[in-house]
């Protein structure tokens, strides 16, 4: 089906060591970046276009002794001057005048792409067309006759599949060929668009323009066409060079007026019609669509899944399936995956210096802290692989576009976009997701304002890392209403996100560019195993790379802030003395045992203590008698010599050791806890937490909660760990963290109302560091990144204070306040949604209500 055109041509030696500039232009999603990567390989350089925040990607390669500099232009639908990207792309072409323009064209939607190609050709550049995504076109049953296309457009047409590097050599050859042709004076005479009735006036205007100073700077035919069309940028260029009242501008205006008076047709519409006619002709001569029955199948499926009554059902089913398969099943998989990570931790621990009796060496605790932080995130890999694979299936099959189609109306009420669905699902609509891929996925939203609103609201979704913290607090404070509390948390965030989106689009974002909602609904086709797998792995890898590096770096900072300035020398000696005393007591008490000599050595004693601690910790997690037996067997096989001290049965001497050991371990634990608490309390982070207390008391946060919240900025996962350290009382009696928190926070100091305020704050709390970095990448602005941190903090704090102080004043309990708050949020959301609706109905342009659905 795919025929490759012969494009071999010997390169004449006179161009050796020559340098040429190539511009890579094309529409969004035509596969420009993959083509760019294919052409240039590793030699890339990213900078900004002067004065704007649009990335300018430049790549270099050497081919047949010619140095080729390739610039990847921003992907735009056309080369007009309505958006920043369009202006950037056009300015580059006009001012830098690349030697060759490679127009990357999406073969699977050729007609639309041709409008763009026409604009490039009209500018008079030597063009090579890279007909990309040939595989997609073939799959769609589109057969393209390259020879016919080449004859029609009169420029080289190279079929490529950028993703698979097909057509690389041919494309590089064609670039050189066109360049050489230009240098030998063989100017390409590409296809010219015929504007029929306007041809003569345009040609006259071109000749006029050719007499002016503009001749050397701009292609005159292009300028003439654009002036007649009324393009503001072309008008500006001419005004700048010749003044606002020059003859050329007046001629152009006259042409337009005369034409419109004669034909009762907008001149720009007419010219577009001419281009469309030509595109239709080209398509007719070079493309054959094979009807493969998929049209019928697509129509059949759509009539079911887009049915008014069935659509919500399929939508809920889909989201539920995603949730079940990725979050629930994925979580089960982490049980098999976690031991792998634990082994990794053990290996690292083996390389690090051994644990001390009382204080661990600094390198060890920091190393393990880093590994733990990374592991907490890597633990989610199975979930992400499944989640991303499912989402790739949705995208490839074509259903994702339908979801956007169904939900657009709803999202639109709040200033969002149908295509906000995917980011929200990734961010974790129900419970479980990650804002990093969520923010990444906003790239496809064409409407700038909705895109920004989506970026700034995705972090309100419940990411996987928030869930353990919720679970902890719910188990302690809302145990009788567990499912209600969980439902509250997983749904109120959606309402908050919608409200925030509405608020932002009506205020800060109101001046941003919007684009019409025009979205392609592709034909359904079964996704390929390879395609889905590749995307899932690719996205997961992005997550690991981006999140992993940042989180590890920040975890070191947080660790340092929690460790320093550390214990004073006096305190440290005091703790050490107490520990030494405990060791002496152990030796005295166990002296009569026949095993006592085994533990005279300090290292042997430490390892016994560590094994015993591990055993007790593991024991905590088993609930059943069989589990307990299995655990015993495991420890027995692993530590055959030491097991009798862990669980002495009849052995009197071992029993003696065990008894003293228990005391020693308990003492050690107590001391370690005290040290940790001292350390955190006196640490930098602790100081900050304390200094914030006067303010945060309105929301019911004490300094321990403040520290947990601050430390969770690195990664949400660490909040539970920090809370765990802070609520240590009772840890030596093997109480679970829930029990400890409940015991320590009992009474009036910490009520369910406190817990509710914290949970609500935590739900709205700023995105974690990795997400903010992603926000920086996607918005290309530090301002928005800072905003994404500051705004949710203020909002969350105000709401939390309202809940806590309000609830206290009204004398409501936690669960009552939860109900009141939820009701208020829902009401406010509905009111906001309806308000827009009323506003819309009042505008005169809206269609007749009766005509909505037949």
């Amino acid at each position: 089906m795919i025929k490759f055109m012969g494009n071999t041509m010997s390169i004449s030696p006179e161009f050796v060591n020559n340098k040429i500039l190539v511009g890579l232009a094309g529409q969004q999603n035509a596969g420009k970046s993959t083509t760019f990567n294919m052409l240039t390989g590793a030699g890339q350089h990213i900078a900004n276009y002067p004065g704007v925040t649009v990335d300018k990607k430049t790549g270099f390669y050497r081919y047949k002794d010619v140095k080729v500099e390739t610039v990847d232009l921003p992907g735009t639908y056309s080369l007009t001057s309505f958006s920043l990207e369009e202006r950037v792309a056009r300015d580059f072409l006009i001012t830098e005048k690349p030697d060759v323009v490679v127009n990357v064209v999406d073969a699977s939607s050729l007609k639309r792409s041709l409008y763009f190609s026409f604009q490039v050709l009209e500018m008079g550049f030597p063009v090579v067309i890279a007909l990309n995504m040939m595989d997609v076109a073939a799959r769609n049953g589109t057969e393209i006759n390259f020879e016919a296309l080449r004859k029609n457009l009169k420029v080289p047409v190279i079929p490529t599949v950028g993703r698979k590097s097909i057509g690389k050599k041919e494309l590089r050859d064609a670039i050189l060929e066109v360049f050489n042709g230009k240098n030998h004076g063989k100017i390409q005479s590409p296809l010219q668009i015929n504007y029929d009735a306007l041809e003569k006036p345009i040609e006259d205007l071109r000749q006029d323009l050719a007499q002016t100073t503009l001749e050397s700077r701009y292609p005159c035919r292009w300028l003439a066409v654009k002036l007649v069309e009324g393009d503001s940028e072309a008008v500006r260029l001419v005004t700048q060079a010749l003044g606002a009242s020059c003859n050329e501008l007046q001629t152009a205006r006259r042409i337009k007026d005369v034409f419109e008076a004669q034909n009762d047709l907008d001149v720009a519409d007419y010219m577009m019609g001419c281009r469309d006619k030509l595109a239709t002709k080209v398509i007719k001569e070079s493309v054959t669509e094979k009807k493969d029955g998929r049209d019928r199948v697509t129509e059949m499926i759509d009539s079911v899944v887009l049915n008014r009554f069935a659509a919500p059902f399929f939508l809920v089913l889909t989201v539920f399936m995603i949730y079940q398969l990725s979050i629930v099943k994925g979580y089960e998989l982490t049980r098999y995956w976690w031991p792998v990570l634990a082994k990794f931790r053990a290996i690292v621990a083996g390389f690090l210096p051994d644990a001390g009796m009382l204080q661990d060496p600094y390198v060890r605790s920091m190393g393990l802290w880093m590994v733990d932080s990374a592991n907490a995130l890597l633990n989610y890999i199975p979930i992400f692989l499944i989640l991303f694979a499912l989402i790739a299936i949705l995208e490839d099959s074509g259903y994702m576009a339908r979801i956007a189609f169904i939900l657009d109306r709803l999202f639109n009420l709040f200033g969002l976009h149908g295509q906000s669905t995917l980011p929200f699902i990734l961010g974790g609509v129900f419970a479980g997701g990650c804002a990093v891929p969520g923010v990444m996925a906003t790239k496809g939203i064409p409407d700038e304002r909705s895109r920004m609103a989506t970026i700034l609201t995705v972090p309100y979704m419940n990411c996987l890392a928030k869930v353990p913290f919720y679970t902890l607090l719910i188990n302690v404070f809302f145990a009788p209403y567990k499912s209600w509390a969980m439902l509250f948390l997983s749904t109120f965030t959606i309402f908050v996100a919608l409200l925030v989106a509405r608020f932002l689009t009506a205020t800060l974002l109101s001046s941003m560019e919007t684009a019409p909602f025009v979205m392609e609904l592709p034909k359904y086709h079964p996704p390929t195993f390879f395609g889905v797998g590749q995307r899932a792995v690719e996205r997961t890898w992005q997550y690991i790379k981006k999140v992993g590096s940042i989180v590890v770096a920040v975890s070191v900072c947080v660790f340092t802030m929690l460790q320093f300035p550390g214990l004073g020398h006096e305190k440290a000696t005091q703790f050490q003395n107490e520990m030494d005393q405990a060791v002496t007591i152990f030796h005295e008490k166990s002296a009569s045992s026949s095993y006592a000599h085994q533990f005279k050595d300090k290292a042997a004693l430490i390892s016994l203590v560590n094994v015993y601690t591990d055993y007790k910790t593991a024991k905590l997690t088993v609930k059943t008698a069989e589990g307990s037996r299995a655990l015993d067997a495991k420890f027995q096989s692993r530590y055959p010599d030491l097991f009798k001290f862990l669980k002495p049965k009849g052995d009197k001497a071992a029993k003696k050791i065990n008894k003293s050991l228990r005391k020693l371990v308990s003492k050690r634990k107590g001391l370690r806890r005290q040290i940790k608490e001292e350390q955190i309390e006196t640490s930098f982070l602790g100081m900050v937490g304390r200094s914030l207390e006067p303010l945060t008391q309105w929301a019911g946060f004490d300094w321990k909660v403040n520290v947990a919240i601050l430390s969770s900025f690195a990664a949400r996962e660490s909040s539970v760990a920090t809370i765990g350290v802070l609520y240590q009382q009772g840890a030596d009696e093997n109480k679970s963290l829930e029990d400890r928190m409940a015991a320590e926070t009992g009474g009036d100091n910490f009520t369910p109302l406190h817990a509710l305020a914290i949970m609500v704050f935590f739900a709205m709390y700023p995105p974690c560091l990795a997400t903010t970095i992603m926000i920086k990448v996607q918005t290309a602005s530090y301002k928005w990144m800072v905003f994404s941190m500051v705004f949710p903090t203020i909002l969350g704090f105000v709401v939390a204070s309202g809940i806590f102080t309000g609830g206290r004043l009204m004398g409501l309990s936690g669960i009552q306040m939860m109900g009141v708050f939820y009701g208020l949020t829902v009401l406010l959301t509905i009111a906001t949604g309806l308000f827009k609706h009323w506003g819309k109905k009042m505008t005169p342009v809206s269609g007749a209500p009766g005509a909505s659905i037949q």
Partner: protein
Amino acid sequence: MPGFGKGKNMRGRRHGKCCMLNDVPPGCSAKIHCHHAKGAVRQRLLDLGFVPQAEVDVIRRAPLGDPIECRVANYKVALRKSEADLIEIEYA
């Protein structure tokens, strides 16, 4: 720029109330006459194939009544009522 980009609203009015793409019931097709939108919106609609004289089939409305699914230039697109309200049509 006086004289540039104007004169779009005068057509259609001559025939009384003009017919918009939004008024076309699902299952029917129409021919695009002209755009009432200006600037970026107009350009985007043109880029996507909503060019004057092009055939448009209205396929269905979304379950909530908005957007509308159409077939234009051999592919299916969804567009909002607010945009469909800016495309003047002539019944084929």
